[in-house]
């Protein structure tokens, strides 16, 4: 392109040197076309490469064209904008792929039979069987973990917000934060080290304990945030009426923030429901139905997915079951998330601001 052509354009635009509004779209289209052409001509088999080439062409094309017409500063600005968009697209591709594949491959064997039958004596390479034992295990382990983790988490948050001053509160805050980052497998190893001392065999409740450890800091953090949102005026009004502090907390502070606390607990449940590593170490997995979480190996949905994947030896039947279980797990987690967010929006405390 000659500079003369660009110079000719200038008088025709009102703002002098600026690209027309449609130019980014044109550059996107042009670079995608060029990327596909280069991919086809060069015989590159991976579509990812085509995309990468198109992305590079887009960024450099934007800079070149904008630098000529608008000047360097504007060109940099446009490149930054294009980079941000490219980053967004790059990040969205795997995520969309993940959701799409899970749904499209998961629905293959996901039916009432799959949800109501267990693997039992079905070999991993055979079709048939289902995730019933895993679902039961998941529900029991997560339920018990919630019974332990949620009350302790909420009480700790109450302590931090309503009473917490001084060194102990600071230490608790710091370690709760640090605890959030404990790898799930380390929590599993901790319970395992206790089990080794008492020479115990794997059972469901051991998994619950590890999950509870993972759950507590999440509940503390979210409950803390919610309690902080309760306006001080409410507490002061209650205290001024002569209501003792503990009744103020129980009758005023907690009810005001109950929506947010529920949300936090449900998000924490969603998080631990997907944990595999501690369950792998402590609950071991069991193709048969075991309804008793306090004795004998159990299964759980994430563990079921892993074992179907790892023991499949490439059998498609096992992969199909793994995808179906993934879809079940994701559906469970997403429903929890959506309901939790719904509750949060519905019961959001009125801060009066």
């Amino acid at each position: 392109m000659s500079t003369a052509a660009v110079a000719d354009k200038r008088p025709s635009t009102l703002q002098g040197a600026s690209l027309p509004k449609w130019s980014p779209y044109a550059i996107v289209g042009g670079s995608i076309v060029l990327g596909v052409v280069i991919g086809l001509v060069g015989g590159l088999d991976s579509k990812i490469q085509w995309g990468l080439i198109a992305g590079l062409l887009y960024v450099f094309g934007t800079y070149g064209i904008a630098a000529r017409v608008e000047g360097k500063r504007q060109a940099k600005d446009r490149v930054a904008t294009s980079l941000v968009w490219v980053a967004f697209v790059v990040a969205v591709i795997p995520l969309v792929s993940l959701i799409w594949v899970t749904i499209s491959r998961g629905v293959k064997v996901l039916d009432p039979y799959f949800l109501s039958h267990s693997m039992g004596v079905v070999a991993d390479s055979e079709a048939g069987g289902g995730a019933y034992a895993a679902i039961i295990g998941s529900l029991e382990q997560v339920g018990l973990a919630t019974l332990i983790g949620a009350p302790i988490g909420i009480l700790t948050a109450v302590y931090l917000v309503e009473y917490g001053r001084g060194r102990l509160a600071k230490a608790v805050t710091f370690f709760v934060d640090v605890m959030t980052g404990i790898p799930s497998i380390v929590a599993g190893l901790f319970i395992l080290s206790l089990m080794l001392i008492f020479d115990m065999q794997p059972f469901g409740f051991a998994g619950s304990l590890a999950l509870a450890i993972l759950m507590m800091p999440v509940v503390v953090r979210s409950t803390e945030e919610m309690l902080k949102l309760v306006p001080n005026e409410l507490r002061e009004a209650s205290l001024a009426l002569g209501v003792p502090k503990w009744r103020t907390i129980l009758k005023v502070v907690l009810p005001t923030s109950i929506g947010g606390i529920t949300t936090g607990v449900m998000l924490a449940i969603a998080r631990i429901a997907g944990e595999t590593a501690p369950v792998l170490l402590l609950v071991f997995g069991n193709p048969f139905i075991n309804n008793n979480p306090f004795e004998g190996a159990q299964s759980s949905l994430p563990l079921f997915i892993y074992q179907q994947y790892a023991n499949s030896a490439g059998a498609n039947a096992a992969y199909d079951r793994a995808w179906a279980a993934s879809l079940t797990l994701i559906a469970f987690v997403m429903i929890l998330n959506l309901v939790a967010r719904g509750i949060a929006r519905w019961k959001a405390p009125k801060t009066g601001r």
Partner: protein
Amino acid sequence: MDISTQTTDASPPTPQPSVVQQKRNARGATRAGDRVFLGLSRGSGILLLVIMAAIAVFLTYRASLAISKDHGNFLTTFEWNTNLIPPSFGIAVLAFGTVVSSIIAMAIAVPIAVAIALFITHYAPRRIGGLVAYVIDLLAAVPSIVYGLWGGLILVPHMTGLFSWLNDFFGWTGIFSWDGGAPRSMLTVGILLAIMILPVITNVSREVFRQVPQMHEEAALALGATRWEVIRMAVLPFGRSGVISASMLGLGRALGETMAVATVLSPDFDIHASLLNPGGGTFAQNIASKFSEATADGRDALIASGLVLFVITLLVNGAARIIIQRRAEYSGANA
């Protein structure tokens, strides 16, 4: 105006001479209630500290049992043979693999996550930004085992093109040389980890970018700055510490990720210069894959490697939190 309610509302408070008396009576009862409640809530807080301490103590105890039996050097031995008599194992390969995969993940995830956070807060139209933020939130909730399954079955086959391209153009560096095996290697693991920690880093960075004082941005705009210059001069300097701590939180997650690595990597016990050839291992992956075949000593050895992982993540997360806490937060209560 509803008179009836007004009259009831406005009914003069009848002075009760016994109020003080009542309060005094109530005080004894409330003190007990308060004490119980304070005890319960403080007890929970202390319980959390006790759990953290117990994790450290018990892991250290089992680890010391294992290390005392270790015939190799725990830090430098390049094997993991816990079933030998005497057992011989070391964490050198695991430490290397954990660090390498996390570095790859960070190198990919941090720039993209920051860009997406900027996209949400400064580039996208408000509605789309909100939608993207919501979707990213949901993606943070996808269980790691599902990422692992997707990585093992979908991502791995898709990596061959990239790998052969890297090998063609950068194979001479040694880091990107590839012998054509299944791409179950550190680079694939790093890319999968990057995808997994992206939502974490994005969410925290987004919050920080949103807190940038509007005045700073408007001042820059008024001086004629372009949008990129506003971001470079006002947004990024303000958000730097937040982005650093967000990255460290992501790093903590990448270091401890188990299932996604276990499903993608085909491990061995050696340090490879090439990121594309399969091999190596990480702490968490090694624990998950070796656990089922481990004997009693083997389990203690795995606990020892878990202790190292625990200490590393503790340091990383602690550092991240200290950076975050420097930014004093305003809260409604205890303000």
